[in-house]
């Protein structure tokens, strides 16, 4: 934990400096307060409206986190099936890649039509965003196992379930987690895009409404809150990785 703080103190300092710099730019009129309110003003507005913002943020976080787990768990199951039955990979993976080329903004209205106006279409949008990187990385990770280790497991008479859980899963963890990091950062995008298309709550809805109402401070407060929430999910993934892979931790500490 001490090292974690040490390593992140530089970027924290950068943020503080940047915020301070913006404050000065706006105060002295280099940037119009209509375009960018001073950070201090944003904070004050955020503080006064925090209950409402949290309410909306809670909805969005639910959608994004729900989508994150739904998408990544489905992807892990798909990848496991691919590794057992390669014919499914041939049948499904190209379609998944094709599907991925459809912009998410185009899919969202379809989902809203099919799933209604509540949280579920946004969860599905987030899940779709999380699904793809996890599917591709996990498929690769489960497949590209050291052939010597596969021979070893075969010689020790392991069946495919043992090979999957004791060999393929652990050796694909690094790839899985790099995909989960991407997915965790992106699934908030899915939820917010869903809210922009149609919603009556959520931080995306809040940001849009405040933009129309020309309440720029509130809008900024919403933007910052949502990115903080995304960062929290990202950190959760990073921490899980840290605790789930103690051997990697030791490799890294040996390196530094």
């Amino acid at each position: 934990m001490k090292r974690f703080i040490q390593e992140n103190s530089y970027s924290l300092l950068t943020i503080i400096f940047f915020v301070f710099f913006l404050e000065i730019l706006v105060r002295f009129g280099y940037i119009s307060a209509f375009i960018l309110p001073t950070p201090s003003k944003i904070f004050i507005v955020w503080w006064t409206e925090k209950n409402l913002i949290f309410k909306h943020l809670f909805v969005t976080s639910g959608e994004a986190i729900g989508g994150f787990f739904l998408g990544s768990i489905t992807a892990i199951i798909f990848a496991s099936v691919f590794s057992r039955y390669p014919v499914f990979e041939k049948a499904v993976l190209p379609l998944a890649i094709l599907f991925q080329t459809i912009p998410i903004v185009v899919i969202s209205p379809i989902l809203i039509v099919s799933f209604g106006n509540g949280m579920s279409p946004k969860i599905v949008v987030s899940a779709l965003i999380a699904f793809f990187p996890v599917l591709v990385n996990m498929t690769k990770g489960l497949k590209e196992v050291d052939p010597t280790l596969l021979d070893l497991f075969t010689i020790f008479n392991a069946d495919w379930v043992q090979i999957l859980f004791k060999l393929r899963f652990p050796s694909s963890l690094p790839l899985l987690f790099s995909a989960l990091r991407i997915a965790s950062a992106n699934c908030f995008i899915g939820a917010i895009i869903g809210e922009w298309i149609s919603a009556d709550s959520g931080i995306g809805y809040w940001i849009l409404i405040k933009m129309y109402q020309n309440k720029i401070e509130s809008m900024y407060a919403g933007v910052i809150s949502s990115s903080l929430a995304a960062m929290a999910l990202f950190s959760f993934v990073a921490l899980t990785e840290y605790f789930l892979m103690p051997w990697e931790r030791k490799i890294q500490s040996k390196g530094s």
Partner: protein
Amino acid sequence: MPTEKNPFSIQVEDLDFTYSSPDRPKIDALLGMNLSVRDEEFVSLVGPSGCGKTTFLKLLCGLISPDKGKIRIKGLPPLEARQNGRFSVVFQSTALLEWRTVEENIFLPIELHSELKTEHQVLFKDLMKMVGLEDFSNSYPHELSGGMQQKVAIARSLINQPSALFMDEPFGALDLITRGKLNLELQRIWGKIKPSVVFITHSIREACFLSDKIAVMSTSPGRITKIFDVNFERPRSLEIFQESDFISLETNVSKELGNSSIL
């Protein structure tokens, strides 16, 4: 479990194996290969690169099946012998699981094959003592040196008490000094447990030092051209390298190797 009267632990008769793929010419990896290894015998295979040593080892393990010929390990064909846990392997790349501690790595064969019993726990302690890694059972492989990792792999190969042990250039990636030390240790461990060993190596000296028999192989097709008996008394020490008998054996083996390989 030597139930049969058969004194041979490993028997290989008239083994043929050809690599064939549609877009390449056929390669006779092994042709008419014969080899018998007695119980508690240590046999080394030396030969030039590409003579089919690794192919032979894969055939022994039942990872691939021969075009012709017979393999018996303790009287059983490789697949059955594998199901009964009769043999074990050590690879050049240590093939340790980096996410498992030394202890978890060593118990892997047990975990995959049967239940962990107290006898395994006892054997584990003995093995750790034998390889001198008592203090490292909770370390991860990358925290150990290359030589120590290979010792873990050797301990892992012995935990299920195999009657035959196949080693594919286990010390090939190590420096000479570590290699010498590990040769001594392998001799000591083998002397205590005495599985039959098929030891593949590039080093003639290593083969002469460790073996009861040295089988020299030739390339294309791969087969055994000559078998040398090694009768030095055990335990052997590294001083043996200076003895004239040892040196002449080394010379003879390398001559045979020189004749058999087409350069």
